[in-house]
């Protein structure tokens, strides 16, 4: 099963490689990883999407906790939480399809962040399902470039964290 794990770490040199090294060294896979400083510049949060059976996920969270620079590990899959990721997608629509493409972006509450005579670049934010649905619909318009941030996630308020 897929799990979204939030890892609070000391914002120190080398922490990312300790975490990614743990995953590669022990044969766990990382489906996505996003990381940045928090409001407190001494801390960073990593959101890691991984998969495995219960025993593997238990090991992953324990092994993460064992790293000296890791302060807190929360398996968000266990609790009610919100997830978001963002994509940037550049398309090359035919002249007659342009209006349709723009309407699609509108429906998904996306934005046009760049345009040129031959291309549009859209920004879409949402959870995994929404992104997947949008990508499915925009594909026929001819995707030229595509990037995604990887997931960030947060527990909902009032939910007990482990």
């Amino acid at each position, binding site marked *: 099963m897929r799990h979204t794990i939030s890892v609070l*770490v*000391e914002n120190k*040199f*080398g922490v990312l*490689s*300790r975490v990614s*090294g*743990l995953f590669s*060294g022990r044969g766990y896979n990382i489906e996505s990883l996003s990381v940045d400083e928090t409001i407190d510049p001494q801390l960073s949060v990593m959101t890691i999407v991984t998969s495995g059976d219960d*025993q593997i996920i*238990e*090991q992953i969270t*324990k*092994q993460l*906790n*064992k790293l*000296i*620079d*890791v*302060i807190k590990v929360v398996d968000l899959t266990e609790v009610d939480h919100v997830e978001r990721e963002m994509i940037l997608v550049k398309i090359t629509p035919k002249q007659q399809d342009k209006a349709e493409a723009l309407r699609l972006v509108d429906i998904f509450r996306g934005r046009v962040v760049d345009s040129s005579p031959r291309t549009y670049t859209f920004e879409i934010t949402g959870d995994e399902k929404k992104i997947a649905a949008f990508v499915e619909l925009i594909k026929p318009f001819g995707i030229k470039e595509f990037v995604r941030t990887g997931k960030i996630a947060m527990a909902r308020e009032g939910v007990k964290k482990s």
Partner: protein
Amino acid sequence: MRMSGAEILIESLKKEGVKHIFGYPGGVVLNIFDLLYENEDFQVILTRHEQGAVHAADGYARSTGKPGVALVTSGPGATNTVTGIATAYMDSVPLVVLTGQVSTDLIGNDAFQEADIVGITRPCTKHNYLVKDVKDLARTIREAFYIATTGRPGPVLIDIPKDVTVNKATFKWPEQVSLRSYNPTYEGNKWMIKQAARTIQKAKKAVIIAGGGVILSNAARELKELIEFAEVPVTMTLMGLGDFPGAHELSLGMLGMHGTYYANKAIQESDLIVAVGIRFDDRVTGRVKDFAPHAKIIHIDIDPTSIRKNVRVDIPIVGDAKRILKVLLSILKEEGKSQWEPVRKSWLKQIELWKKEHPLSYAYSDTIIKPQYVVEQLYELTKGNAIISTEVGQNQMWAAQFYKYDKPRTLLTSGGLGTMGYGFPAAMGAQVAHPGMTIIDIAGDGSIQMNIQELATCVLYKLPVKVAILNNQYLGMVRQWQELFYGERYSCSHLDTVPDFVKVAEGYGAVGLRAVKPSEVVPVIKAALKIKDKPVFMDFVVDWKEKVFPMVPAGAAIDEMMLGEEAEEKKKKKLRAVK
């Protein structure tokens, strides 16, 4: 007071109570070595290889419980420490390894003797540091010692660039270490311990498995009390030998791949396993899915990742073995033991039968030296009053089977990594820590050649380490596998030329002795034990055909043991008799 980085380093080591440093100099650490010149506070032991330095620090640490310290230069000096660090990491040995690094302005430039040792050792250290600012040096050293020695111990590496040893800062020794991200659990969960007590009371066929964690937490006394009070037999992992007196009637010796018949049998028949300070290595469990099929498992360990990593666990208790065993004992004692006495007796009787059925044995010969005989005589002649280290291979397993360890910290052996070349420098480190004590490395002729250069160190510092070489002209354990599982195709396991170890020893200024006949074994050991100021090589020319039994083939369940020809023969005869 403002001091240079090198001075801060020295002051910090003093504050940590360091007395011995195992080291090897080089360009970027010269400022540090310069301060060690004629320094009265430390003894610096100049080894002949950085690997030797780290293993020596490791032997020092394992035999004392205090952290071992090694100091080496950048690049090749640093990379030479890796095997030693990985060895210590696998066996949870507290070390602080100090490596020099090229100056901060050169890092990343492929400078002369630059190696990214922090990157290289990240997966085999408990933690590691690159100190970029001299202001962080004292705090880093304090943290490193703290991390190395608390929780589940392990090696910590500090990489110190040359300019950091020169730059100046005010020396401020932090009185306390507080790391918000590092808080080992020491107290076990009370409710879980109660559950464990209840389960132990109900068990009819309980076995305790004690591991290296018992030694690390100094819990041998509590363990013994538990074993004797609950009348539960105990088996030990390789790392756990010494947890409990090997000659005690409740000891089943070692379990696992080369464990005793009765230990492995008892595990497989048991209805409860109490595992203390072990991590269920595959050499212990055999085929995991068939490990202890009828048993509930109580697992006590300070490292949460050890629990449920390899085997299912019914009652997990995370914490310090000593504290948990104390609480467990007090609960058991409150309730008394009358209820279980009769059931325990019949289980112990069953175990006695297994012990009689297949004791550890070998066929003594009076024409050719059996390696097991050498180990047995080492035990007889030291009365167990020695620290034994081992190399890796058959020698290591015979040392585990035929020497009876009475006390913790009397066996130094590379369990997790299985590092050939560990035993001799480790023995040297132990000798530094215990000057008057008999220290013996039980070695193979292959392994001893991996760090044989440390003879010079032992001669120089008058360390009377004894090395008992079980000279079979083979990488014996490899040969054993090839004989049993590879159709006797002895690819690269015959050593062909083995040096004359007596001459090698003499060449270094040490003592060399040799025994070729069984009758010479005891006199050689006696002569070696008398030597107090020089290392001794004892070259025992042994029967190269001997194999280690019992043996659980890789991938088999631990009761699927090969017991050796002799035992097989006996079994056949018995079968015939029954017919």
